[in-house]
């Protein structure tokens, strides 16, 4: 091994000092021959003969030098360098062509790389937990209702922990906040209420300990799980607020957390501290969490305990756990799923009232990203792959055209003894250099595209904020560049290498017409390009039309100039009812600003997924048609001025008034319902005066409908209107609520003034998620918009490439058939005839491409259906429009060069031959 290294180093050195070595060798040989000659003379030979014999004895001096040269340095490297040099010289002479080819390929590679970086972030990058490939999430799915949440009730979690054997541990957790108040400073910490197994499942490195059974405290009101007054602190908050004090472990901190029994902070014992920052695991969005961007690290863990006593009550209404489990080593996903299927069946029998029709799905944590995003990503990847293919075949066409023009060069080289592989290698080297430059430019393009599109990426996929060019992405870009080089380079290389069976004759017969097989190959490439472009155009067209349709949807309120933010007091700073007082004062304070025309509050952030839904209680006169039908509607707590502020029409009865806010907490006398609510539960009857009751938890208080409000699409533009029941906020105080203010100018400009007013009401008040309603609406469509933006960018790009491709084909045909065309003109063919002949060479394969592309698009768009909104996959406007665009583009691209062909002066052309 060492010998090889030494020899290699010497070789490299010899390569660098080769001039000198060759000079030395020459002089050595000279000396040798002289010595041999004088020896021969000494033996009595005449001088001339002596010299000749010396030469014979020595062998061919040139051959020795040749052999030596091969040994000093690396012959293959040298010829490669020669090839590179040749390619660079060639590109230097054809700068325009080189630039065009690089830009075309860079577009393809750049788009592919950018999309791959999205895929890498979402699908491939390992999650930041030890042995994360064994992590799965268990989702509970209710097949009997359209209730969207797949979270798990504590009773079910306890049942799984007892029964399931596929897992090392099963953990349940939910998102929570606590407040840390210190003088005027208030910090809202966000963390997890988690079962003790969480630390094992996620492999949290701890100083101190995790939770034990003895941490279990008293059951709190409104909570069906037990929590204790212990916690584990996250690494960052430990460093930031407690200076990484190790003595804190075993000590105590005072935290403001929801506590109905008394006012003030609660003392928590710190049993452990995370020694490294730990990321939040996936959390299903809900009305509390909203679309909060949980890419941060966990500030704290508080214990949650589920126990066998809860087995009898796996109520879906309590489903608040996200559940993640760690598979035992060697257990496959299918095995785990099979076991959970059995458990789900058992549960359906045992707790038939709540669990009938419930299924359990085991999903690798890595794959647990929203389904639409996955589909969209697949579509995007397909789109970019097509774009890259188009770019490749485009450049291949260009190279083929060049190859034609270089036949003489190839013929001369072949005649001078260059073997065929040398010529193939030369062409491949050119393609490789092209692809390398294009790859470099492509990566830069991708980096730029990623930066530009990052803010557009949907909030629901927070990981996407971390996408970027990393090593994996670079390797991918490199690979795609090499593949690109092979695809673009191979065909032209082999064509050129075997272009001339009788090389020297082609020196004589200059400017012959195109070979049949050559034009067939070009034709195939053009057809492929056009076909792929048709697919891209139709796909992009359908998405753009969907986005347009979606943006036309009526929200049910006036979204212009609305500022929204979540406001809240530190938990437990005052008694619960003070929340209502604070909210009322905050609304008044904001309203008094001259730049604000109206303000109100609503519980839950509009246009963000997740609702506070109710599935119990009674509705006067409504009998479910069968017992599988469950009551579902969303409850929205609002201030009296809400409908006026949002400009939601009151279609019957009246809006809330101040008097509706008087009375006992939870005992509303007056409610409003949405039109959809009235239609669903009291079809054809007058809803006014009818009552709704939430059931026992609210002492069966009867709440009377005093008005009907217009429908609102609270869950986003693409969802149907929600079925809503409105309650007055003063009777149902909320811990955090969304302030909505109608501004006179740009809403976001008013945010600082609003913040100041609210802080004046309470210096510790928290303001979060400050957005304009326009931003919220855009956010609800972010996935569609991000996807549409990218895919629809591909359509025009592909079109440009196709135009370039068709143009170059015609140019090639015109150059190649100049003689032919000249003879035709000379023989009297009119210019029109000549134009038609030239155009036919490109339009025939283009027509084939359109037909094939349409067939392919039929298949592709069928797969896309789930991504379309109120647009059929066979949307006639898109299809006809796409067809016209591509046809026009092809005709235009072929007409211009064909016109030029027709203007060829036959005499000049013939003379040139």
């Amino acid at each position, binding site marked *: 091994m060492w*010998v090889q290294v*030494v*020899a290699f180093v*010497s*070789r490299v050195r*010899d390569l660098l000092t080769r001039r000198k070595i060759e000079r*030395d*060798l020459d*002089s*050595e*040989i000279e*000396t*040798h021959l*002289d*010595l*041999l000659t*004088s020896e021969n003379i000494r033996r009595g030979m005449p001088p001339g003969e002596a010299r000749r014999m010396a030469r014979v*004895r*020595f*062998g*061919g*001096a040139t*051959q*020795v030098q040749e*052999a*030596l040269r091969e*040994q*000093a340095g690396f012959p293959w490297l040298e010829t490669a360098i020669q090839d590179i040099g040749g390619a660079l010289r060639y590109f230097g002479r054809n700068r325009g062509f080189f630039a065009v080819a690089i830009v075309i390929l860079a577009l393809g590679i750049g788009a592919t790389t950018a999309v791959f970086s999205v895929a890498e972030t979402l699908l491939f990058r390992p999650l930041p937990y030890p042995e994360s490939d064994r992590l799965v999430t268990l989702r509970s799915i209710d097949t009997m209702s359209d209730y969207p949440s797949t979270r798990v009730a504590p009773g079910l979690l306890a049942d799984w922990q007892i029964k399931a054997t596929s897992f090392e541990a099963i953990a349940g957790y939910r998102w929570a906040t606590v407040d840390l108040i210190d003088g005027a400073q208030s910090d809202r910490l966000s963390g997890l209420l988690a079962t003790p197994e969480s630390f094992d499942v996620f492999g949290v490195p701890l100083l101190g300990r995790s939770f034990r059974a003895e941490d279990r405290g008293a059951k709190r009101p409104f909570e069906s799980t037990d929590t204790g007054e212990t916690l584990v602190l996250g690494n960052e908050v430990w460093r930031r607020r407690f200076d990484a004090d190790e003595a804190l472990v075993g000590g105590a901190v005072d935290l403001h957390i929801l506590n109905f029994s008394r006012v003030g902070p609660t003392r928590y014992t710190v049993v452990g501290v995370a020694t490294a920052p730990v990321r939040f695991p996936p959390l299903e969005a809900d009305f509390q969490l909203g679309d909060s961007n949980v890419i941060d690290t966990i500030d704290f863990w508080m214990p949650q305990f589920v126990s066998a006593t809860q087995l009898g009550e796996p109520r879906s209404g309590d489903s608040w756990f996200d559940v993640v489990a760690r598979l035992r080593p060697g257990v496959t996903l299918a095995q785990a799923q099979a076991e959970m299927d059995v458990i789900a069946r058992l549960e359906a029998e045992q707790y038939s009232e709540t669990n009938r029709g419930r299924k359990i799905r085991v999903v690798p944590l890595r794959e647990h990203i929203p389904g639409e995003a996955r589909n969209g990503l697949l579509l995007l990847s397909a789109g970019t792959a097509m774009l890259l293919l188009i770019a490749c075949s485009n450049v291949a066409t260009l190279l083929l055209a060049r190859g034609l023009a270089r036949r003489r060069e190839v013929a001369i080289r072949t005649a001078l003894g260059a073997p065929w592989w040398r010529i193939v290698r030369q062409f491949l080297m050119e393609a490789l250099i092209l692809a390398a430059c294009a790859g470099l430019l492509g990566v830069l393009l991708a980096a730029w595209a990623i930066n530009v599109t990052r803010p557009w990426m949907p909030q629901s996929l927070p990981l996407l904020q971390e996408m970027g060019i990393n090593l994996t992405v670079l390797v991918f870009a490199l690979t795609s560049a090499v593949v690109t080089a092979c695809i673009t380079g191979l065909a032209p290389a082999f064509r050129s290498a075997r272009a001339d069976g009788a090389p020297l004759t082609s020196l004589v017969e200059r400017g012959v017409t195109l070979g049949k097989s050559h034009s067939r190959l070009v034709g195939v490439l053009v057809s492929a390009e056009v076909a792929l472009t048709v697919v891209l155009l139709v796909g992009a067209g359908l998405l753009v039309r969907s986005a347009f349709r979606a943006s036309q949807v009526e929200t049910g309120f006036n979204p212009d100039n609305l500022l929204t933010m979540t406001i809240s007091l530190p938990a437990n700073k005052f008694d619960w009812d003070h929340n209502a007082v604070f909210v009322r004062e905050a609304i008044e304070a904001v309203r008094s600003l001259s730049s604000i025309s109206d303000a109100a509050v609503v519980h839950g952030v509009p246009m963000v997924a997740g609702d506070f839904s109710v599935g119990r209680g009674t509705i006067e006169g409504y009998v479910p048609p069968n017992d599988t039908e469950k009551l579902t509607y969303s409850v929205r707590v609002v201030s009296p001025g809400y409908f006026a502020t949002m400009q939601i029409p009151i279609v019957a009865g009246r809006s809330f008034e101040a008097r509706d806010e008087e009375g006992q907490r939870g005992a509303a006398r007056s409610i409003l319902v949405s039109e959809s609510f009235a239609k669903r539960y009291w079809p054809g009857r007058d809803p006014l005066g009818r009552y709704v009751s939430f059931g026992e938890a609210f002492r069966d208080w009867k709440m009377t409908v005093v008005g009907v409000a217009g429908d609102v699409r609270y869950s986003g533009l693409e969802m149907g209107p929600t079925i809503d029941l409105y309650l007055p906020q003063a009777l149902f105080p909320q811990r955090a609520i969304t302030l909505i203010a109608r501004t006179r100018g740009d809403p976001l400009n008013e945010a600082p003034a609003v913040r100041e007013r609210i802080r004046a009401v309470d210096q510790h008040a928290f303001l979060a998620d400050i957005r304009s309603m326009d931003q919220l609406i855009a956010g609800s469509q972010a996935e569609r918009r991000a996807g549409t933006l990218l895919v629809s960018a591909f359509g025009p790009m592909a079109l440009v490439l196709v135009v370039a491709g068709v143009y170059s084909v015609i140019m090639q045909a015109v150059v190649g058939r100049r003689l032919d065309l000249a003879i035709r003109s000379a023989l009297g063919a009119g210019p029109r005839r000549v134009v038609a002949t030239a155009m036919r060479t490109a339009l025939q394969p283009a027509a084939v491409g359109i037909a094939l592309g349409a067939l392919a698009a039929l298949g592709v768009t069928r797969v896309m259906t789930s991504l379309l909104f109120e647009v059929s996959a066979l949307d006639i406007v898109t299809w006809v429009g796409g067809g016209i665009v591509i046809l026009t583009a092809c005709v235009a691209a072929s007409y211009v060069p064909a016109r030029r062909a027709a203007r060829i002066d036959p005499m000049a052309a013939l003379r040139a031959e």
Partner: protein
Amino acid sequence: MTKGQGRSEVLQGTLDLMVLKTLEVIGPQHGYGIARRIEQISDDVFQLNEGTVYASLLRLRQRRWISSSWGYSENNRKAKFYAITQSGRRQLAKETQDWERIAGVMARLLRLSEG
């Protein structure tokens, strides 16, 4: 090139060994001297294409088994002198051993088939 009676082609790979051994025995020498010496020792059995000696010298130098420096030949011509290095000696010892073992085996084998 014609082949003389009783003369053999140099066995592939053995030239390097011969050059090393020569340098070990007679000390620093130039290419011409090495070629002469090998032919003398072999009683002109080897038909040496003398140019190949230089290829061998380059190979050996790249492996650092020999070193080279400029000097003057007997008739006062500028010539490059080659000398065996420490690692060259080690390599020579190793290859000599290998060679003798193979030669021994070959000899036994050939005697066997004759008998």
